[in-house]
């Protein structure tokens, strides 16, 4: 009987947070799905050449973006892990910044840097040359890569560090060629994370909206997300939106499923990485590395420097209005921070709760972890526009969503960051549970002691990384905020749009700079804190 109640309790503890997540993610999709069967659908042609073209292009650009991102991340992550070079830490921090910026800011940073009158072209003009690659499909792909490459490269670097030292040593002793080292040492450990990064980039690129519009040059390179937005926000054609959202969702699952099967490997337990630092930062950068990292740095740093320069350059312009900037920051910074902090707490709490329940119950239900991973991959197929607009419509039938914006927005931000956060937390939780769960059960530690002295020190790094991602995602979001915010709620990205909408482009450039600096500060503080934690751990160990 006790066993029965204990199982029931476990089920309930897993079911509650999981049903919360599923309700928020799948509710809109189910609602839109039901709408398709409605008789009052418009005479919209579901198989028109344009729509087929949009679907084809959306997946092609997402696939190419993911492929280039993963290939680049493998190279850059390797150089980050293996070699020491001047400016490495700065470059590593800067790598994470694009992820935190609103899409429109990234779009504009690309235009300021690489546009027809951008800094690169102005420089080339000195030699009578000109070059631009934006306003076509390559610009969309480049912007998607810009968003995801840095974060994936940082992830790959961390994955390299998980390869046991003994394997590197054996490869060295056996005089393995570089290719064999990659096949027998690196690939088994990186296969799974690389596919994860691929899927992550793919799903983010599938929901490209603002970037596709600004950088793509027109309807020729339009994405499904634009069509969904038009159907839901302008035409209020729920059936059309539902059809497109479900295509997007199903195709993501179709892509995710083989990836999950192919990258699946049995959990082998915790890997000892002691001594991996011996192989870390151990060599000077070779010529090829210098070339690749220079390209990477130019690609990453030039748009960001352009953004900073653009923001600062207007300060000396006579018509620059400091009062407007002050008013806009004064109102938007507290709201933005409040929403970002709440959504971070929600993301981390739900990810921890679910991953803990999944990992501690994986002995009873061995397929639970795999099922969870598939579910998380599927959730990536639901775009922010579908989630927020679908949720808005459902919520509207019960209450006024605009009156509850201050708690609805953090929940939706938290949920949108959840599939990414749980990807980071779940493997760490598996490690923790396999290493400590039985010991904890044997000794009668108090709950607080378990939480603060065992659990958090062991799992703090993935928590911090996923927290930083959730925080920065919320900081830069415009799609959810613009749907739920009434005029009295203003965030930094909304302030940028408001300024732009009233001709205040100079002031908008400065507020963009502030948003950029806020993201930068968040990541620098996070990195610094994590480094201190690592040092403390090393001291404790010694």
């Amino acid at each position, binding site marked *: 009987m006790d066993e029965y109640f204990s199982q029931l309790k476990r089920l309930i503890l897993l079911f509650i947070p999981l049903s919360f997540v599923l309700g928020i993610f799948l509710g809109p999709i189910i609602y839109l799905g039901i709408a398709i069967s409605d008789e009052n659908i418009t005479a919209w042609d579901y198989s028109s050449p344009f729509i087929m073209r949009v679907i084809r292009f959306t997946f092609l650009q997402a696939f190419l973006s993911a492929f280039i991102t993963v290939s680049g991340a493998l190279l850059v992550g390797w150089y980050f892990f293996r070699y020491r070079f001047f400016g490495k830490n700065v470059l590593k921090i800067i790598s994470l910044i694009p992820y935190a910026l609103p899409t429109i800011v990234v779009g504009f940073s690309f235009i300021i840097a690489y546009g027809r009158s951008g800094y690169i072209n102005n420089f080339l003009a000195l030699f009578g040359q000109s070059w631009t690659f934006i306003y076509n499909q390559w610009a969309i792909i480049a912007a998607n890569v810009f968003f995801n490459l840095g974060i994936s490269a940082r992830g790959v670097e961390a994955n390299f560090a998980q390869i046991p030292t003994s394997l590197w040593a054996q490869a060295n002793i056996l005089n393995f060629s570089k290719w064999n080292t990659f096949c027998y040492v690196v690939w088994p450990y990186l296969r799974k994370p690389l596919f994860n990064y691929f899927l992550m980039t793919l799903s983010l690129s599938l929901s490209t909206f603002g970037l596709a519009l600004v*950088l793509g040059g027109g309807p*020729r390179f339009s994405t499904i997300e*634009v069509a969904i*937005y038009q159907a839901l926000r302008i035409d209020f054609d729920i059936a059309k939106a539902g059809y497109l959202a479900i295509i997007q969702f199903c195709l993501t699952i179709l892509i995710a499923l083989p990836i999950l099967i192919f990258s699946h490997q049995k959990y082998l337990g915790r890997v000892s990485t002691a001594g991996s630092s011996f192989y870390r930062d151990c060599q000077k950068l070779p010529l090829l590395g210098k070339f690749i990292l220079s390209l990477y740095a130019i690609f990453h740093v030039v748009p960001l420097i352009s953004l900073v320069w653009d923001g600062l350059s207007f300060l000396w312009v006579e018509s620059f209005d400091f009062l*407007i900037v002050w008013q806009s920051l004064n109102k938007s910074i507290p709201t933005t921070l409040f929403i970002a902090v709440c959504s971070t707490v929600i993301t981390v709490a739900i990810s921890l709760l679910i991953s803990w329940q999944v990992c501690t119950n994986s002995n009873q239900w061995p397929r639970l972890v795999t099922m969870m991973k598939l579910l998380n991959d599927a959730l990536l197929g639901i775009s922010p526009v579908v989630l927020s607009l679908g949720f808005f419509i459902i919520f509207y039938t019960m209450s006024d969503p605009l009156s509850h914006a201050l708690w609805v927005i953090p929940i939706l931000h938290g949920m949108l960051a959840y599939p990414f956060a749980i990807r980071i937390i779940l493997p760490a939780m598996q490690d923790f549970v396999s290493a400590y769960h039985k010991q904890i059960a044997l000794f009668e530690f108090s709950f607080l002691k378990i939480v603060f002295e065992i659990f958090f020190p062991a799992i703090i790094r993935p928590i911090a990384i996923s927290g930083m991602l959730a925080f920065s995602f919320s900081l830069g979001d415009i799609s959810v905020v613009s749907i739920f915010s009434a005029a009295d709620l203003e965030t930094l990205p*909304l302030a940028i749009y408001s300024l732009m*909408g*009233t*001709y205040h482009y100079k002031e908008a450039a400065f507020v963009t700079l502030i948003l950029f600096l806020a993201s930068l500060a968040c990541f620098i503080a996070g990195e610094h804190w994590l480094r201190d934690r690592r040092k403390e751990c090393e001291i404790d160990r010694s």
Partner: protein
Amino acid sequence: MEFSLKFRITCAIFFVFSGFWAKESFSTPVLTVYVYSSFTSKWGAGDFLKQEFEKQCQCSVRWVSLTDGLGLLGQMRLEGKNLKADVIMGLDTTLLDGAKATGLLANISHEKLGETDLPVPVETDYFYPFDYGFYAFMYDSRKVKPFNTFDELLEKAPPKSIIIEDARISTPGQGLLFWMYARYGEKANEYIAKLKPKILTVTKGWSEAYGLFLKGEAPIVLSYTLSEGYHKMIEKVDHYRAMFFSDGHLVQIEGAVVNKHSLQYKLAIEWLKFLRTDKAQIHIATRNYMYPVTSSAMKKIPEKLLEVARPSKLLNLEQNTILQNRAAWINNWTNTLAN
């Protein structure tokens, strides 16, 4: 007499909630106004209008901001009968029939709301104009010369020199589409094909398009004639100018509509009347960079705005024609630019 802790907590909760309830019940009436986002920002016209109106009405104005006119119409369709807005501001005449089709608009023809001085006649049974402007291509005079007709623009503009807004999701984008149909009739699609090689990019909305123009990405952008007035008045520069076509411009008349299910109908009508006062009209003109709809306010707007020329010829499209053809025209536009 001793009260138990439970009793005290229950009483405290009751008093706190009854306080909230009382505050809700006896608080001032709230007028909910849906409007496009640039209107409600601190530096838009909204803040001043809200403060001024609240002084005179013993009420509170609650703004809800949406992207643009199309966003407002989409929101009306989305909310349907449960529409929370009392007034919706910022729809233009091209969206009026779509708004009427929702069945949510109150007939305000019996209200004595005063005369307007508009460049084209407008049906005002359901629609209350508060400003207007003329769609125009703005150009950077340091880089290109102006064109005198639409035909000339289509023939002589350099390749990839024009930035326009997306007709599928933005009001100015649809404005250009209607302008071309008003100018070229059924042949408009051929002319859209002619425009295609001249387009550098198509943006989500006016803000993005104008931002790219100011960054120098292209020398021509679709905007309004009074954009020129902004640069002259605020930035004191005169190289950003509007092109005036002798073959006609399309006028955009923005207006407010009242939700027929509104519980604050009287307040909504008061608000409409307030919008036509000189101080409100002048404020809208100088913050929204659009023309006032009353002749008395027109005389009082800043000279720099009056200095901007007005189109010599105006084009017009029947609202019914727009309603019947909107979807097909947008499809044509999309297919032409996509192929």
